[in-house]
């Protein structure tokens, strides 16, 4: 009966109910869309980190390699025998691991016979590169971070182990002529594991983007075999492990670390989002979380104040009614429940409208294909809002709790007024 009464009471002051409901609805839509944007960015970062940057879900190095590899590569590289031992361990996780790749990163000079340009090289196995770039997640979440040509030529490294990939910016710096031709050779010079200067021939043909401005004039992609030839090794600096979708990253890493600790050489593993191997990820997510928290505070405060104001006004207007309810036998708790229920029903209705509005708005924004350039990112990316049920449910729960608390606070204060004072109140 109280529920029905509460529902009917909403229509007694329609204007106030609509304005309060609108405030809740706008707050809900705002938070929901903010969540949709953060969700999209996080998924894009996850995908680019794991697949386009070829980190894998978990990356394994020799202990202290992150700091020491550049100084003492010979000591911190995984030798072939060590890689074989690790392969045996990885084979025990076949139900969780989808595939594994080996990498060597380093610095050197890229030369075209006339000039040299200092670069960072990132090496990979051609099969792993092709497999990673054709993952469905790339087209779903990170197609703006991959050049269309990369996808078209995804097998280029498999077909030709001499080919390297440069960014458009490096091509410009080195005056390379388009279309990048496999017949044009470049030389990659660097220091071998013995510390000697060495150089290898490479062919042009592939192009990529790092997605990040500060790396766009520096990073080249080179097949692992060529970098091994340059360094004079059969080893690898790190191993990237790509997990199956159903695998739990935390559980897998824990079990893997236990197994790796039994090896004669010490290793360390990192999740793809670890600050030590992926500072951009943490920096971007950290910024978005702080920004999101600020907006949640602002919107939450606005919604809360609207409810407090609306409810207080309602109680002031309805003091005689409250007094009458007490006089006919309603308990204070029941009256408070009535008012709180009124607000909760209003909140639920607003959320329902908000869900619809946020979905429509997100679809509209996505269909408009608005493109922008985020700070330090190369090229434009689509401003996409990915509506997500889990986010909508979380924001709905947050809004309901906020409404409940706001209503409860008002009712607790007003229920202290005596019955005689309520009945004598003019309602002014």
């Amino acid at each position, binding site marked *: 009966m109280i529920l029905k009464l509460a529902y009917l009471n909403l229509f007694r002051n329609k204007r106030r109910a609509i304005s309060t409901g609108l405030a809740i609805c706008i707050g809900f839509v705002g938070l929901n869309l903010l969540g949709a944007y953060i969700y999209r960015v996080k998924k894009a970062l996850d995908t680019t980190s794991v697949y386009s940057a070829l980190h894998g879900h978990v990356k394994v190095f020799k202990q202290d390699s992150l700091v020491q590899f550049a100084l*003492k590569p010979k000591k911190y590289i995984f030798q072939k025998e060590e890689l074989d031992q690790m392969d045996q361990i990885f084979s025990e996780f076949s139900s969780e691991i989808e595939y594994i790749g080996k990498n060597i990163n380093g610095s050197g*000079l890229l*030369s*075209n*016979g*006339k*000039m*040299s340009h200092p670069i960072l090289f990132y090496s990979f196995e051609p099969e792993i590169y092709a497999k990673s770039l054709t993952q469905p997640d790339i087209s779903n979440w990170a197609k703006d971070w991959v050049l269309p040509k990369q996808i078209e030529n995804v097998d280029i490294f498999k077909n030709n182990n001499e080919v390297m990939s440069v960014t458009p910016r490096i091509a410009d710096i080195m005056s390379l002529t388009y279309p990048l031709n496999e017949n044009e*050779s470049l*030389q990659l*010079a660097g*220091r071998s594991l*013995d*510390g*000697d*200067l*060495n*150089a*290898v*021939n490479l062919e042009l043909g592939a192009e990529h983007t790092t997605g990040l401005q500060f790396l766009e004039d520096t990073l080249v992609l080179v097949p692992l075999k060529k970098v091994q030839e340059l360094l004079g090794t059969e080893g690898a600096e790190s191993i990237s492990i790509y997990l199956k979708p159903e695998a739990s990253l935390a559980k897998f890493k824990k079990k893997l670390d236990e197994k790796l600790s039994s090896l004669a050489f010490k290793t360390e593993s990192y999740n793809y989002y670890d600050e030590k191997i992926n500072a951009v990820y943490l920096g971007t997510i950290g910024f978005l979380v702080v920004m999101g928290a600020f907006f949640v505070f602002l919107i939450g405060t606005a919604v809360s104040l609207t409810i407090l104001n609306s409810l207080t006004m309602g109680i002031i207007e309805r003091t005689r009614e409250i007094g009458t309810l007490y006089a006919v036998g309603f308990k204070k708790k029941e009256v408070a429940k009535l008012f709180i229920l009124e607000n909760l029903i209003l909140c639920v209705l607003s959320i329902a409208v908000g869900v619809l509005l946020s979905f429509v708005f997100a679809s509209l924004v996505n269909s408009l294909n608005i493109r922008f350039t985020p700070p330090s990112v190369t090229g434009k990316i689509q401003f996409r809002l990915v509506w997500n049920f889990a986010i909508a449910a979380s924001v709905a729960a947050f809004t309901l709790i906020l409404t409940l608390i706001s209503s409860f606070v008002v009712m607790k204060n007003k229920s202290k007024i005596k019955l005689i004072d309520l009945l004598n109140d003019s309602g002014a």
Partner: protein
Amino acid sequence: MKNVFLIGLLICIKAFSADADLATELLKTSDRGRGGLEEGLEWTANIETTENGDTASREFLIKAKKHDAFVEALKPAKNKGEVYLFNDRQMWFYKPSLKKPVSISARQKLTGQAANGDIASTHYARDYNATLEKTEEIGGVKYYVLFLKAKAKNLTYDQIRYWISDKTKLATKVEFLTLQGKVFKIGTLQYNNVLSVGGKNIAFVSQLTIMDAKFNQNKSVITYTKPKVVEHSNAIFNINNVTR
């Protein structure tokens, strides 16, 4: 009063200019002991490197003429055939398997503490502006301490402090400084080789030891042997001929 001031100023300028002239002259003379000659030269350099407990040895044959040098790796066997070519201030690396030569910097590490630029002949008088910082007496011998500042950005070092003996007019100690003026490498030189140039015997560098300023166990010892005056064809210093 005005005239006195002007005369004082002229004396100061003259003294400063005399110091600068002396510094440049000392530098020119000392360069001769490190291959800075007009004549064609040839010598062998063996570099023994100790770094973080590891040791390595490399040997090069250097053919130099004026400001050009052709440096060929002799040992170890895996590096045989590698060539470093110095064309004035431009430097190239080439090995037979490469389709094109690689333009490299004189500053880059050759091996251990030795930079690419350390291996060829020295032309500090051409490459650096010298000022006389002070004079010092070491073991009863007067030394001029010169401060050298690079004239161009692509030189091996930005700044050098150089000790030249008044007696031999040869440099015996060198400090290599960063752009900020911090010493990062220290070198000592010995001149036990004799080179016959135009009928005159001149002392020629026999050993250059370059140590890390902070970790002096990390060092490279370059031993120079068999120096001689040889007539070189200009063609060997042409990068196009090297890659053919």
